[in-house]
């Protein structure tokens, strides 16, 4: 999921002819003051970070004069909001809001859904919980789309009456088309405002793009560079995330936990299963990982292995892959040995259990010959056998080192 920053989302909506307030992004206090002076009147300054709930986090502030706008921007720039550093601020002409509505398009496991509510605002969950009638959810048939008459009826069901319905129906239908063309995973308009003249204005917008559709949207390059990498506090996590974002094909992920057994697993069910079973066997995972299929760029797998060895808490490693017989075992083992040698890991003090079968297995087994502490399990071994062994080896290590 790529969360697009608000300035780009608004520019895109403006290009599509949709009602968006005047606004521009700045990266200095002077720029903010100049933008406010150009717009005249009150402006809203918004920190451009890909995090939700910016308003609650103090990332959305009103200013009445250009000087005030400059001072607010000064305070926002460089701050960290939701683990992202604020490098740019969006200056937007303040809208006189008569009514706040809510509109969102999103996916669940049945397909796309639209949610409309006559009560928009900062805390949509709380508002929805307090007044269930005000919120209407509808599953969209992707073949039929969302025609304006159908969208109008959804708004009608929230209790809205009158000519506004006509505008809401047309706008909602149009936004669904944009949501689809854009390959968005989520498009939230909150608030969808009715201004002093009774016109609809898209005041708060949030757009998340489907990373899987990146290949057909070259225009996303800037969004990806800006928002894909979260400023994780853990340098090992950040490093793997950066490599994952910079190299296409396959996925690698590394999440650090507080245990001592490193987990090198695939991305699917077997990884989940082994993590559960490791806990059940009394082991404590030092991390969870997702590694790409063997066909992917090898730097991805390598980055995860390096992170595991780099984690000072890790005392042992479980390399556990399912009995798929498709991936080449030797490539994974060779990469593992490469990292061991490069980082100078003494495997006699760092037990490694490998449960990895498939093509190239003979070569993989041969390549570990003469290396102490690496246990390559025979083909009859189950995932649970590997887990029991690694837990026992860590227990043994603890008892010998006291």
């Amino acid at each position: 999921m790529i969360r697009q920053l608000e300035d780009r989302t608004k520019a895109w909506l403006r290009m599509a002819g949709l009602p968006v307030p005047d606004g521009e992004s700045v990266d200095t206090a002077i720029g903010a003051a100049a933008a406010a002076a150009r717009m005249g009147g009150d402006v809203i300054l918004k920190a451009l970070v890909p995090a939700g709930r910016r308003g609650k986090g103090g990332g959305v502030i009103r200013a009445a004069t250009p000087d005030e706008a400059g001072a607010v921007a000064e305070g926002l720039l460089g701050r960290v909001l939701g683990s992202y550093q604020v490098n740019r601020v969006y200056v937007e002409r303040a809208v006189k809001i008569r009514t706040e509505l809510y509109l969102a398009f999103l996916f669940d496991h049945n397909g796309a859904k639209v949610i409309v509510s006559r009560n928009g605002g900062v805390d949509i969950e709380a508002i929805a919980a307090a007044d269930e009638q005000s919120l209407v959810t509808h599953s969209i048939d992707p073949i039929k789309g969302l025609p304006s008459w159908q969208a109008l009826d959804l708004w009608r069901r929230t209790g809205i009456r009158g000519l506004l319905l006509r505008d809401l129906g047309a706008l909602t239908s149009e936004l669904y088309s944009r949501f689809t063309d854009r390959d968005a995973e989520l498009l939230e308009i909150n608030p969808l405002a009715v201004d002093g003249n009774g016109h609809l204005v898209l005041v708060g917008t949030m757009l998340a793009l489907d990373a899987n559709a990146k290949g057909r949207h070259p225009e996303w390059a800037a969004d990806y560079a800006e928002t894909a990498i979260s400023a994780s506090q853990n340098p090992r996590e950040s490093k793997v995330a950066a490599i994952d974002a910079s190299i296409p094909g396959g996925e690698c992920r590394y999440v650090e936990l507080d245990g001592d057994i490193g987990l090198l697993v695939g991305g699917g069910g077997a990884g989940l299963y082994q993590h559960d079973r490791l806990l059940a066997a009394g082991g404590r995972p030092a991390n969870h990982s997702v590694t790409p299929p063997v066909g992917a760029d090898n730097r991805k797998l390598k980055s995860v292995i390096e992170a595991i060895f780099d984690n000072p808490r890790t005392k042992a490693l479980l390399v556990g892959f399912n009995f798929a017989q498709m991936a080449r075992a030797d490539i994974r083992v060779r990469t593992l040995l490469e990292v061991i040698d490069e980082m100078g890991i003494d495997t006699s003090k760092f037990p490694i259990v490998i449960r990895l079968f498939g093509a190239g297995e003979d070569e993989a087994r041969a390549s570990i010959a003469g290396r102490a502490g690496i246990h390559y399990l025979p083909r009859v071994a189950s995932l649970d056998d590997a887990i029991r062994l690694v837990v026992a080896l860590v227990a043994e290590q603890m008892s010998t080192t006291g």
Partner: protein
Amino acid sequence: MSILIDRGTRILVQGITGGQAQTDTERALRYGARIVAGVTPGRGGEAVHGVPVFDTVAAAQRNHPADASIVYTPPLAVRDAVLEAIDSTLPLIVVTAEGVPLHDIAYIVAAARANGVQLVGCNTNGIISPGRSRIGGIGGVDPGEIYAPGRIGICSRSGGMSAELARTLKMAGLGVSTCVSMGGDSMTGMRMVEFGRLFEQDPETEAIVVFGEPGTSNEQELAAAIAAREITKPVVALIAGVFQENYPPGQSFGHAAALVRAVDDRATAKKRALSAAGAMVAEKLDDIPVLLSRCLRTRNVAAV
């Protein structure tokens, strides 16, 4: 008998000239699968392991009609490939690609439903009816090492775990009628409960084993069908991913589908729902044959 594919099933391979498709085609032919034609636009007239290649699905269907199609096209070409297969009225379409955009998945799932087509996947490792046929990469080089023919139906959210399940059964002397890797994406064509209903109707399937993960309502739908007595055959479920509940929400550890969205999507809730409905919940792989042997004995049916 089996579900979805059997000895007689004629298979079309879309994207047959790609690397993975060629490998799988060769292995499937060796296993006895009836692959009758392949399609790659612009490559009509060629052959892959003796299988004739056509430019379009329609041309392939005119010359060598098939009952099922396996789609190997890259993720961004899946939508068109599936719509082309639906247009040629193929009743079963299996999609292997991982990373198909959400809007495309939503569209092909809806199109398949609207046309009464059985869509398996995306992101499936395939289907195998041991000793009879296979479609996709499932089973790898030597399916016999993993999948023995028998009377247990398997449906797994994870392709890799389907092999672990079948191998666990085989080592306990149990075999498989059909094993379906249903795909791990958050949105899939056929759902777990639909495979469950097919197994229920299959006279040669005596019991069902499912593997589930956090995310989606597949397991809850299956539980509801068991509770409603739509599925009466014994069901053993193994659900992984309980550990995620110990970590702060928002951390995602597996497939996109494993992003925990609501309480009901969690592994523990799924286990509870299945157990309450009357399914047997296994904690580990080795529990599965034990639970099966118990219920198969009470039903007084030989396992193999």
